[in-house]
């Protein structure tokens, strides 16, 4: 297996981007990544996208994007794993370069979510749950994560204030990210005063509906050196795992076994432990998700995720900065793009390009991207070469 490096990243501002089409979102980010890498061609490409069929009535996304990127006839593959589509696409690109099949691989993620109304978006997102045995009976995605929160509060004493502290922290980080959809700062009181979506989750505990895309360029580490790229970043660990599609089938409703499994695979491959990680982008689709994921990744003890957020452990300048980009909460969550956008953030942090939100001296970073209620999870660990 060859070592794999990231030599280019691209991402435009996330938001409600009415003037940009599905394909233009993707191509905009991809062109930026190609320019950043300074390459004149790619050998292959992957597109992470969850539900373009329901959001814009478009399937056959691989060739569409290769065509509009001016790269046809390169092979182009669309990857779907609900909200983990982007992260799983990154892993497919990583495998293709590591295997020796291709040298220059573009991995992009994209979702165009605001061409439909709220009801249709809720329906599309619910397809990441068990359609026949969860959604059929009336549960929504906020409802499923709300039930995780209820269980976590009951078992560990996690509070609404601790959930709100996650949102406030991520908006604080997002206020320093010019590409964030909602860069305004919010307080714990703002979260607690906001409308209840599914008890105990308020609207400000939830990530938003977003249009956006992100892209990276992968190549063998040897080639990255030969091309003389500025500060190439190596992917030193990649882990991917699955779990029951229905939340109710989990033996422990306060655990996310696919997250811990995907992390342990990535830790083992990289030879790193949680103590070596200097920053991490995690899948905070809801505030309770960030709390549970920080526990599963081994950054805090089980049941202490809420207290850690409240105490500032996971803030910028804290012991373990989580979601320096603002996370899904403030940066926005175009579902298929999220896993790739996380890679863009960590790469820029490791290059020292993150301005006001830079983690000083960061050399090792991590991403964790999750589908559904944790039925899929993918983790990547990166290090400065």
């Amino acid at each position, binding site marked *: 297996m060859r070592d794999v490096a990231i030599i280019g990243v691209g991402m435009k501002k996330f938001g409600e981007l009415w003037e940009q089409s599905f394909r233009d979102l993707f191509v905009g980010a991809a062109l930026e990544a190609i320019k950043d890498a300074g390459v004149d061609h790619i050998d292959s490409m992957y597109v992470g996208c969850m539900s373009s069929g329901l959001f814009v009535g478009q399937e056959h996304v691989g060739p569409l994007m290769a065509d509009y990127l001016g790269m046809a006839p390169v092979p182009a593959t669309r990857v779907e794993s609900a909200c983990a589509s982007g992260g799983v696409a990154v892993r497919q690109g990583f495998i293709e370069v590591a295997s020796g099949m291709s040298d220059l691989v573009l991995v992009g993620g994209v979702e165009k979510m605001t061409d439909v109304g709220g009801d249709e978006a*809720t*329906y599309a997102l619910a397809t990441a749950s068990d359609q*026949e045995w969860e959604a059929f009976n009336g*549960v929504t995605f*906020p409802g499923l994560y709300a*039930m995780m929160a209820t269980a976590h509060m009951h078992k560990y004493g996690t509070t609404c204030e601790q959930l709100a502290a996650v949102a406030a922290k991520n908006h604080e980080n997002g206020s320093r990210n010019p590409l964030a959809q909602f860069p305004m700062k919010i307080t714990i009181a703002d979260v607690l005063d906001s409308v209840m*979506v599914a008890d105990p989750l308020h609207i400000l505990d939830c990530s938003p509906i977003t249009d956006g895309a992100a892209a990276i360029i992968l190549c063998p580490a040897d080639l990255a050196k030969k091309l003389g790229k500025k500060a190439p970043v190596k992917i030193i660990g990649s882990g991917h795992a699955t779990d029951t599609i229905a939340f109710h089938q989990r033996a422990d*409703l306060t655990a996310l076994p696919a997250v811990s499994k995907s992390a342990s695979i990535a830790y083992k491959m990289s030879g790193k432990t949680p103590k070596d990680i200097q920053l991490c982008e995690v899948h905070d689709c809801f505030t309770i998700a960030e709390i549970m994921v920080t526990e599963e990744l081994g950054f805090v003890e089980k049941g202490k995720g809420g207290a850690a957020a409240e105490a500032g452990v996971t803030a910028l300048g804290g012991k373990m900065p989580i979601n320096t980009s603002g996370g899904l909460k403030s940066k926005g969550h175009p579902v298929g793009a999220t896993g790739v956008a996380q890679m863009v953030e960590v790469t820029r942090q490791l290059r020292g390009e993150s301005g006001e939100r830079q983690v000083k001296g960061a050399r090792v970073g991590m991403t964790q991207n999750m589908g559904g209620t944790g039925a899929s999870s993918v983790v990547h660990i990166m290090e400065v070469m």
Partner: protein
Amino acid sequence: MPSARAWREYPRRYRYEAAVCKKCGKWFFPARLICDACKSTEFETKAMRRTGTILTHTVIRVPAPAFADQAPIAMAVVAMDDGPRLTAQVVDYQAAQLAIGQKVKLEFRKISDEGAAGVINYGYKVVPV
């Protein structure tokens, strides 16, 4: 929902039929073709007892479109006394009964109505006992 898709699940939604592994005895709801515990493919069909316990819960205030006329709706994950778990709406309850540990039973109810061009979906909801 196409009528065939609704019809094929009637044994589960109307009669709570589960599959019980003939080799290791594990219950599955809904039925599966292979046991995830012992990998056997031999099952016996048995109806679940209707009783169970709430493991976690929420009240959904922003519902899916098909449930707009029922909102807010209480939902729970329920551990059935025979072992399987399911997600169901909680109905006919007092506030204090929407709680972890509350005993419930399955009842046959209308779930959603797809309007003039669709089917009326029936299935199970749970009520406190």
